[in-house]
């Protein structure tokens, strides 16, 4: 039992360290990819190919004044970014990041807790994550922040529905909520991937995943052109940075979820071992998010709601219905 606790603590610390470093690295990758797609060079001068730009950004964020506006609700203003970052990392607890491997003769399962409601836990935690922007916007006594938090409420709540409904059909097929069961269900190679039997659910999940991670076609929460910076208007320094660590961690989580549920997870892919395979899949999904940001404009809030309630939700319900009928017959 002691060994179990120690192993869990070590895993939690490792995940926290690696994923937050990856989230920082994600900002660099995002700037580079966006620059290349616009035929620019991106950050080039800090370190080789601008790699130390992350460190420069980190130093800047840490040394900036931690500013709390006079009219703000201090306590809520201070804990709101922590909610975003914390829930993003807690959601990763039920996600198996790599296949089992042996190190020093000990078999390591790279998942903090393989609970039987894994998927539900992840979605619930990402849902709780909406409290971060919501409280941040409402606590800062700023009209842009208030509009940002109002948009948070409508956007995240609406797309929660689509996420849940789109995942329901794969859950019906697998018959379990554990992400490891999802992975084992698709063990037979590419032809067994759930994306082939549930293409619509995959697309719906991606769309709602973009909305829940606040990525470009749906980045209405902090849309600079309309509402300055939305819920993050009054934030500075590391509190602002925590929102971004949370956002990039959520992107990584969505990448892992899509790879595990639809794209075969960490099963070996031909000659590629499973660990490399899932890293490749998640990297592609991360790249897809940046690619979409470079290519597409974002939608208006009313178009966002129209898309969610009038297109995506009926499609998701229809998908569940058809899946159910096919499974019964």
């Amino acid at each position, binding site marked *: 039992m002691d060994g179990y606790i120690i192993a869990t603590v070590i895993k939690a610390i490792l995940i926290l360290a690696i994923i937050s470093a990856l989230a920082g690295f994600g900002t660099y990758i995002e700037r580079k*990819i966006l620059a*290349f*797609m*616009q*035929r*620019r*060079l991106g950050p*080039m001068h800090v370190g080789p190919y601008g790699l130390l730009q992350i460190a420069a950004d980190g130093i800047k964020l840490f040394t900036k004044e931690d500013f709390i506006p006079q009219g703000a609700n201090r306590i809520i203003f201070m804990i709101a970014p922590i909610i975003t970052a914390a829930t993003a990392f807690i959601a990763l607890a039920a996600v198996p990041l790599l296949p089992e491997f042996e190190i020093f003769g000990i078999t390591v399962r790279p998942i903090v807790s393989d609970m039987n409601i894994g998927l539900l836990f992840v979605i619930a935690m990402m849902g709780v994550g909406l409290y971060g922007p919501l409280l941040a916007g409402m606590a800062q006594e700023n009209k842009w922040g208030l509009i940002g938090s109002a948009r948070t409420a409508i956007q995240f709540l609406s797309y929660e529905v689509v996420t849940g409904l789109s995942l329901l059909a794969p859950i019906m097929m697998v018959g379990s909520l554990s992400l490891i069961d999802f992975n084992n269900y698709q063990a037979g190679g590419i032809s067994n991937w759930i994306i082939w039997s549930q293409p619509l659910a995959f697309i719906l999940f991606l769309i709602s995943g973009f909305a829940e991670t606040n990525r470009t076609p749906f980045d209405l929460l902090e849309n600079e052109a309309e509402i300055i910076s939305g819920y993050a208007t009054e934030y500075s320094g590391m509190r602002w940075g925590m929102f971004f660590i949370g956002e990039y961690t959520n992107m990584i989580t969505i990448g892992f979820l899509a790879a595990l549920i639809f794209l075969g997870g960490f099963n070996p892919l031909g000659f590629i071992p499973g660990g490399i395979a899932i890293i490749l899949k998640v990297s592609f999904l991360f790249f897809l998010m940046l*690619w*979409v940001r*470079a*290519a*597409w404009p974002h939608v208006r809030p009313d178009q966002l709601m129209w898309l969610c309630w009038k*297109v995506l939700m009926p499609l998701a319900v229809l998908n569940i219905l058809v899946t159910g009928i096919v499974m019964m017959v």
Partner: protein
Amino acid sequence: MSLNNFKDRNVGVQNYRLLDLEPTPKTGWGKFKRVLRRSVKLELLVGLKVTFREMIKALFMGEMHTVKYPFEKLPISPRYRAIHQMLRLLESGHYRCIGCGLCEKICIADCIRMDTRYDENQRKEVTEYTINFGRCIFCGYCAEVCPELAIVHGGRYEVASEQRAEYALFEDMLTPIDQLKNQKEYPGFGAVSPNADENIKKTPLAY
């Protein structure tokens, strides 16, 4: 970007064409049909294709647009009017300026000031010649009016200074004597036209 492309930019005569945009549908059924058409035709993927193509072009086909400015510079037009230069006669190496004072007279910003005297050969000699670049508007009149092609515009356009009045002396602008063979004529206002030799007629005395 090569100099040739830079000069042939053809501003104003590009082939603009109107997009054949369909009218916005009025009814709900029309809107639904448009959504269906747009999603089934996968128009969204065209945008992804374009950005990916641009990335491939930038990374592997050498079409990156960024110019790392202080390290590399775009070519400027040879007629660009930047900081002045004083040219020398190619044969003797003596400065071309004859001290006529026309540039001082025509300068509309009143930034050129010169002083001359007769030397021992009764030749005009420039004793003082300054240009106040804080006042100069780089209009090019001085280069245009100069009968000897002595004062011209060079290519040095980075002219930030710590003081509002930044004076340049005659010696600063004069071509260094060891750089004489690299001295270039200025093709802008006041320069000899390219077909000048054809336009010259012999004086009647030569017949």
